[in-house]
């Protein structure tokens, strides 16, 4: 495994005093954030609170107005849509941007890891939604990124597939140990996956909760239940709504 095992506090990314405004509207307003290697961080927040803006800034896709991001120039990103190139076979999709000679072997290894090692030459159009997202994960991890950015990657999947993907992602992150930032709307997903859950509001990280291993593995654990209620309250969901949602 990687050297990060021995230095658990090695930072994957450090963000300081980040600011981003669209005209009058300030979306990110002096935000600080640090994610270590091997650490899984979930970022929650209401729609339009700036979660995705932050992720895109970390990915180098959008500019920022001021502040500093100390992280890898080329973090890996998995989007909500798989974004596989339909004209390339699976292995070519995974090896995109790698040089041809080493690319195929690396792609094969990465696809095997996500359980698609027997479909190197297949076309993306023959994949189900979950399989396509697994290829997207393989493509993200093939370069052993220091920082992995996940932009609601499981939102479009059905409930059962999502649970399987959660297990796979946990396993992959444990193996490769990147720092992970998961942007999600799903409180249960955050509790199941993250070591730390953040709530973004008014352009900053407003709340921050550690998530225990017990809460990760058992959604009925008292800690998980309590954290769920706390997070939902932070996100502006009232207790009445919570109870109805749970009953449904």
């Amino acid at each position, binding site marked *: 495994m990687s050297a990060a095992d021995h230095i658990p506090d090695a930072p994957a990314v450090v963000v300081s005093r980040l600011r981003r405004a669209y005209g009058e509207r300030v979306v990110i307003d002096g935000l600080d954030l640090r994610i270590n290697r091997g650490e899984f961080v979930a970022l929650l927040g209401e729609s339009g609170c700036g979660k995705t803006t932050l992720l895109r800034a970390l990915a180098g896709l959008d500019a920022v107005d001021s502040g500093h991001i100390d992280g890898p120039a080329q973090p890996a*990103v998995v989007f909500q849509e798989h*974004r596989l190139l339909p004209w390339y076979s699976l292995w070519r999709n995974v090896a995109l941007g790698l040089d041809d000679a080493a690319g195929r072997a690396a792609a094969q290894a990465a696809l095997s890891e996500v359980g698609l090692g027997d479909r190197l030459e297949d*076309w993306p159009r023959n994949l189900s939604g979950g399989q396509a997202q697994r290829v997207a994960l393989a493509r993200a991890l093939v370069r052993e990124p220091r920082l992995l950015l996940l932009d609601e990657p499981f939102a479009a999947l059905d409930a059962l597939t999502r649970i399987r993907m959660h297990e796979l992602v946990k396993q992959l992150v444990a193996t490769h140990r990147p720092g992970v930032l998961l942007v999600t709307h799903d409180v249960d997903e955050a509790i199941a996956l993250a070591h730390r859950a953040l709530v973004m509001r008014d352009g900053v990280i407003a709340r921050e909760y550690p998530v225990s291993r017990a809460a990760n593995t058992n959604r009925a654990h008292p800690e998980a239940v309590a954290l769920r209620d706390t997070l939902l309250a932070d996100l502006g969901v009232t207790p009445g709504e919570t109870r109805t949602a749970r009953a449904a």
Partner: protein
Amino acid sequence: MSSNIASAVVTVRAPAARPDRARPVRLSRRALILISWIVPFVVFGVWEVLARSGALSAHVLPAPSKVLGTAINLIRDGKLVGDMGISLLRAATGFAIGGSIGFALGTLVGFSRLAEAFLDRTIQMIRAIPFLAILPLVIVWFGVDEGGKIFLVSLGVMFPIYINTVLGIRQVDPKLVELGRVAGLGDWGVVRHIILPGALPSILAGVRYALAISWLALVVAETIATSSGIGFLAMDAREFLRIDVIVLAIIIYAGVGVLSDAVARALERRLLSWHPNYAGAKR
């Protein structure tokens, strides 16, 4: 022909439902191909019978067998092959020139809004000129030389390739381009791995259309002013009322048209095997 050029934007067909599902009558692929060939043969058969019985005067339409005989005679003379070669060479040269210019301009305009501002309106204006309208001008400029014919073919080919190249490049999903950036591709990498493959279905649709145009343009050019080629063969035959030769020329034009379309289709099948609409039997 001008109306053909005006409708030169050929869009890629929308993804159709899988044909292997929920079809009431299942005919094998081979049976369907067989059926598609029956109709033309029946037409030729009826034509032959009508011509032989005298119901169709030889001065109106000679029998297919007579046309075939004429073809064999002309091939023996060596005349037919030579004229056909000249016609094909003209079409190919014009296609290469017009296609290259159309692709180059299309790429430029597709990538650059500035180039679009400079070029697109002018190109669209030229495109609006009916093809046949400039024919007298072409004859004045080039006389009956090869230049005029190649010019006409090039002009006809240029526009569909241009339009479909621009369209193809513009239609590439910006999310995929973004992904290319995330994967660490540089500008050329994005063009090579994402934009050109993404534009290819549209470009090939343009190529297929342009092939048909090139042939049409050639017919017009060879009919007006020429001293060789298939068109000349037909015009020359008209002087001597050789209707069989005229019909032969028409059939050759049709045949080459069908053939070039088949070549374009084969190209699409090969280059777009990843595309659900062009997918062959494989996978």
